[in-house]
C-alpha cells in the first residue's frame, strides 16, 4: 500500500473538510447555506475517492452530486420557501435525545472498527491503473441485469416525480394561500 506522506496529509485535510462541512450542513440556520456546504462536502468527497484510486467514481460524484443533486435541491427550496430565508433550517425539540442516540451509534461503530483485525483481510494487489475500462466492461457483462434495472428505476423515478409534483386543479387555491401568507 502507498505510504507516501502526501497521501496521509491529503487524507487528513480532506477528512477535516468533509466532516466540518457536513457539520455546517446540519448546524447552518439558513437552508440555502446548508446546500452550499453540502456541495463543498460532495466535492471534497470526490477528492477522497481520487485518493482511493477510484477516478471514475470521483468524476460521477462531481457530476451527479455536486452538479445535479445540489442544483435540484436549490430549485426545490426556491419553489417551496418563503422569500425570507432566515431561520429556515432550525432544530426540533429532540436535539439532545437525538444527539445522545447518535453519539452511541458512532461510539459503537468506532469501537467495532478499531477492534476488527482488518490486516488479515487486506489484499496485496494494487488497483489497476485504468479503472474506467474495467468498470465499463463489468457493467456490460457481469452486472448487465442490475444496470438495466437501474435504468428502469431512473425512468420510473422521472415519470413518478413529474406525476407527483404536477398540480391538476389546485393552482388557484395555492395562489390564494400564498397571497394570504404574504399578507401576514
Amino acid at each position, binding site marked *: 500500500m502507498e505510504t507516501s506522506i502526501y497521501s*496521509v496529509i491529503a487524507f487528513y485535510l480532506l477528512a477535516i473538510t468533509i*466532516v466540518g462541512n457536513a457539520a455546517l*450542513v446540519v448546524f447552518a440556520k439558513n437552508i440555502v447555506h446548508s446546500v452550499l456546504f453540502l456541495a463543498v462536502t460532495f466535492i471534497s468527497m470526490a477528492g477522497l475517492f481520487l485518493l*482511493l484510486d*477510484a477516478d471514475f*467514481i470521483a468524476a460521477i460524484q462531481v457530476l451527479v452530486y455536486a452538479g445535479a443533486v445540489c442544483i435540484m435541491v436549490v430549485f426545490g427550496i426556491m419553489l417551496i420557501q418563503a422569500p425570507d430565508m432566515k431561520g429556515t433550517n432550525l432544530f426540533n425539540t429532540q436535539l439532545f435525545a437525538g444527539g445522545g442516540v447518535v453519539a452511541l451509534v458512532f461510539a459503537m461503530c*468506532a469501537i467495532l472498527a478499531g477492534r476488527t483485525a482488518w490486516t488479515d483481510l487486506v489484499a496485496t494487489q494494487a*488497483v489497476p491503473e485504468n479503472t474506467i475500462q474495467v468498470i465499463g466492461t463489468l457493467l456490460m457483462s457481469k452486472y448487465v441485469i442490475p444496470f438495466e434495472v437501474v435504468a428502469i428505476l431512473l425512468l420510473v423515478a422521472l415519470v413518478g416525480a413529474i406525476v407527483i*409534483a404536477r398540480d391538476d386543479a389546485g393552482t388557484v387555491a395555492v395562489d390564494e394561500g400564498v397571497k394570504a401568507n404574504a399578507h401576514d
Partner: protein
Amino acid sequence: MLTISLTHYVILSALLFSIGLFGVITKRNAVAVLICIEIMLNAVNINLVAFSKYITPIDFTGQIFSLFVITVAAAEVGIGLAIIIAIYRNKLSVNLDDFDLLKW
C-alpha cells in the same frame, strides 16, 4: 508508523453517517432531512470504495455497487423533492412537525 489504513476510512465514514443521522433526527425542515439522507448515503459510498481498494482491488465490486448507490440516491432526491412540493401545496408548510395527519 504514519499510514492511512482501512480503519481510518471506516471511522471517517461512521462519523459522517452519524452527522447525517443526527440531522435526520433533529431537523425541522423536510428538505434538510432529505439532504442529510444524502450525507448518509455518501458515507456508505466512502465505505464501499475503501473496501473495494483494500480488500477486492481486482474485482471492483465496491466501486460498481457505489455507482448503483449514487443512481438510486439521485432518483430518491427527485422523488423526495416531488413529494415535499406536493405536501407543501396541500399544507403550505415544510415543517415536519406539521405533518401529523397519521397521529391520533
